[in-house]
């Protein structure tokens, strides 16, 4: 038992009928970190999360949460925002939050006070006594988010927390996630948005086809990709850029405003892109071979065949 770990998974396996959902997954998540759980659709992220929370049981393997097996007491120290989320539509917002707080062992009065503070902060104070079905989807999502932090959990597990929110609300919730981390909480969240993951996470775990394909701090993961020869070229040019359309050289171009991040086809040396740029007669202002972005690493991993 390791008390410095928020989550420890050893050789987790889960099959549904003939479909393998998770295969031999190991994971060690230190406390007070923010970790992104990445992977294509159907890779096994949600199953992994459900196994951590003992909503479904694993066929094999060992799960430890906050330094031990998941007891009812431990459960109260975890906050969970599922991907498939809703609210009792006929309940009033404040009552619902107090109820969900109570389910986590928070006393009614404490839960009520905190819920009011949170509603205030997320600009929902006027809605406290309204029924949930009068709220917009975005508002409901904020209420769901409040319910996961209301009991001040030590571990937060968020499944696609920002999906469907406008940029303002995404920023607000991100700020709260960072704040939770500063408070000492561990955050594991799954996302498809690599930019968000890159900006928020210290660690990433990537699952593909039921298996883990990446695990480490962001720096370690980038370093690993560099060592495997993955490169991205940051390019700023003036003039003809038709050579970027050449599919034998370039796999994808991401416009970042001041420059473009160019992903090369497998086996293509960055040098050849520079040659192509020179031949086109454009003026090259910037040509920098860099570590690939998380997005780039994700796409490479996701496309790789075993």
């Amino acid at each position, binding site marked *: 038992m390791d008390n410095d770990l928020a989550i420890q998974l050893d050789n987790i396996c889960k099959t549904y009928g003939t479909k393998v959902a998770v295969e031999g997954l190991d994971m060690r998540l230190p406390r007070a970190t923010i970790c992104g759980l990445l992977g294509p659709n159907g890779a096994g992220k949600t199953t992994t999360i459900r196994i951590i929370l003992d*909503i479904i049981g694993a066929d094999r393997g060992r799960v430890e949460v906050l330094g031990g097996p998941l007891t009812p007491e431990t459960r109260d120290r975890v906050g969970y*925002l599922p991907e498939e989320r809703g609210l*009792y539509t006929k309940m009033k917002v404040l009552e619902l939050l107090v109820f969900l707080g109570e*389910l986590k062992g928070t006393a009614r009065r404490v839960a009520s006070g905190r819920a009011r503070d949170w509603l205030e902060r997320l600009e929902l104070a006027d809605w406290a006594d309204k029924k949930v079905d009068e709220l917009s989807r975005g508002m409901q999502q904020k209420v769901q988010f409040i319910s996961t932090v209301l009991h001040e959990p030590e571990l937060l597990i968020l499944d696609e927390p920002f999906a469907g929110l406008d940029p303002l609300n995404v920023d607000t919730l991100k700020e709260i996630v960072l704040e939770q981390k500063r408070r000492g909480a561990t955050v594991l969240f799954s996302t498809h948005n690599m930019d968000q993951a890159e900006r928020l996470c210290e660690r990433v775990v990537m699952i593909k086809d039921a298996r883990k394909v990446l695990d480490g701090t962001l720096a370690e993961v980038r370093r690993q990709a560099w060592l495997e020869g993955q490169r991205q070229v940051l390019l700023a040019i003036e003039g003809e850029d038709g050579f970027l359309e050449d599919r034998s050289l370039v796999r994808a171009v991401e416009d970042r405003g001041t420059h473009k991040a160019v992903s090369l086809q497998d086996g293509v040396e960055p040098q050849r892109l520079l040659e192509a740029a020179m031949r086109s007669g454009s003026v090259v202002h910037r040509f920098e071979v860099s570590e690939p972005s998380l997005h780039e690493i994700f796409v490479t991993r996701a496309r790789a065949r075993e």
Partner: protein
Amino acid sequence: MNKLLAVIRREYLARVRSKWFIITTLLAPVFLVAAMTIPILLAVRQAERRVAISVVDETGEVTPELLKTDAFKEGRLRFRPAPRGDTEDVQRALRQQILDEGLAGYLYIPADVLEGGRVEYWGRDIGQTLVRATLRPAVTSAVRQLQARALGLDPATAARLAQPVAVEAYRVTEEGVAREEGQTVITAHILGLVIYMAVLLYGAMMLRAAVAEKTSKMVEIILSSIRPWQLMLGKTLGVGAVGLTQIAVWLGILGMFLVYAGSAQAFADAEFLKNLPVGFDTLLLFMGLFLTGYFLYSGMYASVGAIASTEQEASQLQIPVTLLVVVPLFVIPVVLEAPRSDASLVLSWIPFFTPILFIVRYVLGAVAIWEVPLVFTLQIVTILFVAWVGGRIYRVGLLMTGKRPTLPELVRWIRHG
């Protein structure tokens, strides 16, 4: 424990506060009173209405006697002379009159009526009350008068001969002897029906409660905090408390009604209410059977709710369970007729039928005292079994959406759940 209370409170308040609950709680007694009084009022009006009938009398002697009977003197029947002529033709004409709505019906009295010939009544509406309570006594009385005269007896003796002999029923029980006017049977029937309705009503409530987490997509949020059995138990107790609240309100209204009615002379004199065979023991048993019936069926309804993904789907899937509640409803008449028969005994012991049939037998005084602990033991064992199976189905079913499980899959859930 606090979490369980939170679930119970939520389930309870969510229902008790709804408009539907308030409406049904207050309106049900109104409907009940209406259901009880309207048939009586209708029967009274029916009795007050005069029925116009003709008589085709082949003897020629019966009609004058018939007109002397109470039915005609009190005006319940009104005599409409029939046209003269061949009886076949007259009857055809009268039947046409009946169809033309002028005439309610006519009596055909054959020539050999004094020697046992059959009297016929032809009419548009053949009400059993009309035939049994009005026509039969009137015709009997008239015919007896003629028979008596033929034998040389005086009219008073003839009237006595026409009277049927009264047979009074007394029920012999451990508590003593009571005059029986059918109130025991009616009470037994009503108590059985009330349990039937309660099980169905709160079972359906439980069914909807069990699908609520799925339709609102709250399953995972809830299951990350509490265990499925806590959710199911909390729901069962919460909905059960709703049922008890509703019944308490209804009993309160009924009580006020009886106190109010009790002050009215008409009810104070009613033999029926005085002899109502509902003692404290009956009420206790009734509450006990209501509770076991509720727990038994709510467990089954909860399992059905867990298999379904939507309320519509749930209401299709609940049919087998509801059939199980409906069967004893159809068996009640059998038990009322012969509460001591082997069939009644065995049927009332079958746990799924016990809540409804056992109370019927008990009110009829057909239950041996040792049966009570036996039946309740069976109830509790069955409830535990249903809760165990239901809990397993519920646990797996909660996370399933979309595809409905097949029967073999269900068995697998139960075995490995």
